[in-house]
């Protein structure tokens, strides 16, 4: 009734192969993009930007990155936090070494550097798989964080061991540093999130993505039908790390402004992003957004309800949040392993037929 594809005829291959083949979907996404770009920047205040929207967009980028590696290529990684740290420290070094270059170039370069590091730590995936690999990626997590803490060159020999983002501007608007407005923070993250999601969507439905999925479903069979596991796995690591690196760079330069490796990029960050893609849906770009939204909103919601409404202590709310997230992970794995994305797809399926049962 509300959601129809009847009458939506494709008359060319180009039509058939577009990113959102159903017209209603397409309009929906255009409408969301229009609101996100044209309405939200004017009404956003710093609470909404800092507590909800900016972390949501940044974690969505990280979740897309991990989803490419884990959801599409089937290589579980627990090193996301470490790779985010690479992105953050890379953008810091670039920003301070070449102040004249635009910040956007720095952020993309930081992603590229992270991609190289990711390929390096992805090399063992050619020999080991499953949770052996998951544990091996822990090596990346701990080693990288230790490296950024112990080698003073990475934090420019600052006394506190912290890195602080200097002010950089795009077209006269400050996007990093303390003078940044809420809408500037929001807009730069939004641009990166939209562009990267579009790239990811098109990569995953192209030949590269099909190779990744073949490797995920059964690597030996994939090899037999002519997928080169070396290039497929390493390209998954490279693309995934590129996304995660950009997320780390944005997290540090735009959102946090100052960071310390073991605190901002610890093992918990790796788990957080992993949980996002489990709850959102493995192997789905929409799921990455849904999962990121869910896990960013949950603490805000709990804090508002438990602390502000009931007046409970904050640490108790934090512990209850741990319990809820843990229970939700188990719940989703049992009831709906494909996560929120699958629930959304089912809803659309139902709406398509409504009010008829079949």
């Amino acid at each position: 009734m509300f959601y129809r594809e009847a009458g939506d005829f494709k008359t060319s291959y180009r039509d058939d192969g577009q990113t959102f083949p159903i017209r209603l979907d397409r309009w929906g996404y255009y409408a969301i993009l229009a609101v996100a770009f044209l309405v939200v920047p004017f009404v956003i205040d710093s609470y909404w930007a800092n507590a909800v929207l900016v972390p949501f967009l940044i974690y969505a980028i990280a979740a897309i990155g991990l989803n490419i590696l884990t959801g599409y290529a089937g290589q579980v990684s627990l090193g996301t936090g470490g790779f985010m740290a690479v992105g953050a420290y890379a953008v810091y070094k670039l920003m301070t070494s070449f102040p004249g270059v635009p910040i956007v170039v720095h952020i993309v370069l930081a992603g590229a550097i992270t991609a190289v590091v990711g390929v390096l730590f992805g090399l063992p995936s050619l020999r080991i798989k499953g949770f052996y690999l998951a544990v091996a990626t822990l090596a990346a997590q701990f080693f990288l964080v230790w490296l950024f803490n112990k080698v003073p060159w990475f934090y420019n020999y600052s006394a506190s061991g912290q890195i602080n983002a200097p002010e950089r501007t795009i077209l006269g608007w400050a996007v990093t540093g303390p003078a940044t407005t809420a809408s500037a923070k929001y807009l730069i993250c939004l641009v990166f999130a939209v562009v990267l999601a579009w790239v990811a969507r098109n990569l995953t439905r192209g030949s590269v993505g099909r190779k990744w999925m073949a490797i995920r479903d059964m690597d030996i069979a994939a090899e037999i039908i002519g997928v080169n596991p070396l290039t497929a796995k390493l390209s998954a690591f490279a693309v995934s790390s590129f996304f995660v690196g950009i997320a780390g760079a944005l997290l540090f330069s735009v959102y946090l402004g100052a960071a310390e490796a073991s605190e901002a990029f610890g093992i918990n960050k790796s788990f957080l992003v992993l949980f996002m893609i489990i709850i959102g849906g493995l192997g789905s770009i929409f799921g990455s957004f849904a999962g990121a939204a869910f896990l960013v909103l949950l603490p805000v919601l709990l804090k508002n309800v438990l602390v502000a409404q009931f007046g409970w202590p904050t640490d108790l709310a934090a512990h209850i949040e741990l319990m809820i997230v843990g229970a939700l992970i188990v719940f989703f794995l049992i009831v709906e392993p494909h996560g929120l994305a699958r629930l959304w797809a089912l809803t659309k399926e139902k709406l398509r037929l409504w009010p008829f049962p079949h």
Partner: protein
Amino acid sequence: MEFLYASEVLANGLMAGVMYSLVALGFVLIYKASGVFNYAQGVMALFAAMTLVGIMEGRVPFAHLINAAFGVHVSSFGWTVPGLFAILLTALIMVGLAIAIEKLVLKHLVGQEPIILFMATIGLAWFLEGLGDVMWGADVKVLDVGLPQGISETVETMTDNWLGYGFFIDRLDIWAAVIAAALVAALVGFSQYTKQGRAMRAVADDHQAALSVGISLQFIWIMVWSIAGFVALVAGIMWGTKSGVQFSLSLIALKALPVLMLGGFTSIPGAIVGGLIIGMGEKLFEYFVGSMVGGATENWFAYVLALIFLVFRPQGLFGERIIERV
């Protein structure tokens, strides 16, 4: 003298390795019997230690929650429970936990891929961590069940007489080594010579074949998780006595992972040998190389060692050969 320092470091590393082995043992047991790689093992150790302290000090469970919800101020029952009795009570709670995990989680995930089960145990770990904090509070607790602590004078005088240099070894570490050895002997004996142990090995070999000869999968899983709970309790007591009951206790699970990768996921002796190698290796590495690169290499040495090792021998030292069929 240089050599003596190094051997003291080595001896301490061996003792630390015993501690890692204790946690790794719990992993191996569950992995062998149910094919589940239980990430929550470390948090189970934390939870057991917290519960033990809570019972011994007579704390009211969920005190913070009750206080917040009803506006009262309860914190303690006002009694203390002797250590041994509290340990028994905690063991019972761990059995209850095993039953709950089987009923609520594992039963619904039979036949899923190992990596899904692994992620489920990560969720379980978060849940237990939150539960422990809500039940007993997140403060650092002191655990003292009467285990001896401090420098062992016997070893010091002995080595002083032999080598002219007294070794510094914690008595707690020696006790841990003894208890670990006893635990391993008991576990090996149990799995080799008792009826339940044989049933456990049958389940590990093939779920369906075990079911068809009349072994109750449900019972075996509850049993295995209970045993893992006991091992977690022992590990929790040791680590809790050593460094206080606090969140960092659950991170020893992460240290046990490289131990397992080194020793092989399916081998009890592998867990012991792997633990010893990692314990010695990281202490020696810190001693010889750590000072040159700024220290704290213990954070990552174990993982990198395991990573390099895995590339050459993916099944670990004593693991069963990984055979893949299409």
